């Protein structure tokens, strides 16, 4: 079947999508966006977390056809998404990230403009080790701070309870979210 939906602010189309395919598979294998990670395919690890019409979900548990006509934001579009949000977000055509740009995306140390505040904070707090869990955590943490700009530790733990990390022991991840929250308060 054919699937048309919005990915990171741009209309996209995929053909020959199998009806039982997950949104995660479409993003990674058909759109060429490997940012969202595939680890468990059963909703347990959160490394595939994306926003579906704004809501954080496990992309591995959304049937591709359920994303028809909907808006998906992946980690590749997070910096742009955060920028739109901070600047009053006029979502006119031409905004968003093309697939090519998303594929070429690299985090360049020192170039703040390329990173969302939560990405910056993860780097500065040393919250990334192997990095496999990072995309899902970034999407989940960014959504938490969008809802709640000064979360308690309990709020952070709850919001990130669907994201597993095998490396960091989570402390640095909590630090990163606290750092991003503190910086956004300073900025106001």
């Amino acid at each position, binding site marked *: *079947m054919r699937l048309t939906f919005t990915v990171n602010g741009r209309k996209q189309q995929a053909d020959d999508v199998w009806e*039982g395919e997950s949104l995660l598979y479409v993003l990674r294998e058909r759109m060429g966006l490997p940012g969202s990670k595939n680890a468990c395919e059963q909703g347990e690890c959160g490394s595939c977390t994306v926003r579906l019409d704004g*809501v954080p*979900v*496990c992309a591995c*548990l959304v*049937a591709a056809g359920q994303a028809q006509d909907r808006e998906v934001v992946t980690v590749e579009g997070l910096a742009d998404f955060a920028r739109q949000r901070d600047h009053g977000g006029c979502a006119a055509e031409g905004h968003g990230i093309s697939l090519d740009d998303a594929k070429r995306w690299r985090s360049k140390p020192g170039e703040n403009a390329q990173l969302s505040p939560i990405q910056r904070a993860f780097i500065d707090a040393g919250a990334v080790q192997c990095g496999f869990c990072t995309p899902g955590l970034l999407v*989940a943490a960014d959504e938490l701070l969008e809802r709640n700009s000064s979360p308690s530790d309990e709020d952070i733990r709850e919001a990130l309870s*669907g994201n597993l990390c095998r490396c960091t022991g989570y402390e640095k991840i909590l630090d990163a979210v606290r750092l991003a929250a503190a910086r956004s308060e300073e900025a106001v």
Partner: protein
Amino acid sequence: MDFLRPASWEEALAAKAEHPTAVPIAGGTDVMVEINFDHRRPDALLDLNRIGELREWEVGEETVRLGACVPYTRIIESLRAELPGLALAAHTVGSPQIRNRGSVGGNLGAASPAGDSHPALLAAGAEVEAVSVRGTRMIPVEEFYTGVKRNCLEPDELIRAVHIKKADGPQQFSKVGTRNAMVIAVCAFGIALHPGTRTVRTGIGSAAPTPIRATAAEEFLNSALAEAGLWDSGQIIPPAVARQFAELVSGAANPIDDVRGSAAYRRHALGVMARRTLGWAWEEYRGNERSARCA
């Protein structure tokens, strides 16, 4: 495989009548796991996400009509006052990502004995609104579960909504698992006090082939509370009564040994949860009574 995408409830019913083997998909948190692991390869998926009314609820005089696809997150945010037991249970489901998609309709459709909504629905009192092109059936939730992961839906039926009694007294839910998040219940227990009818109702999860009520325990407690006049006096429940209630709840279970826990542990844990949740709920009832009397 077909992907059926009805835009309205009528279309969905027509599609299910025409393709009785089509598997409905709501949040997908059960269905997609089965497909990803090749445990299930249905001829067709029937997507319910496009049907707006399934994500809505109506708060009536006595019941809440909860649309089948309302995600757990909405229940926790918006229905805590009307459905406290279900909101507590919903809060223990999976993780934020799972609660953002998973629904009570899906929990009923899957009919796992470990589903967390079931004890809360059994304790509160609920009916499942099952609809087909042939008409509507209202099924008391205790009759809905027919076996391990089986329910009494006909092949052409879909769940439209669940009608849940609004809380008329305190409700509690408790679940045993290895950690706080992302955990399938070793066993679970729900309790609802109904001061209006002076009855207590219960629900047991993960400790029998289907979710069940502990009816003998309910009957014992109902008469013990009545005989001692405790609904009126608001005095504490004598420990011996609470103990007997807990034992009867344990006895109602018919658990198995599995990787999550032994049958003996499940029985034991159910007794502990029954005693504790009764204590919490009764304390809240006494508090409400006291403040009502002072006012």
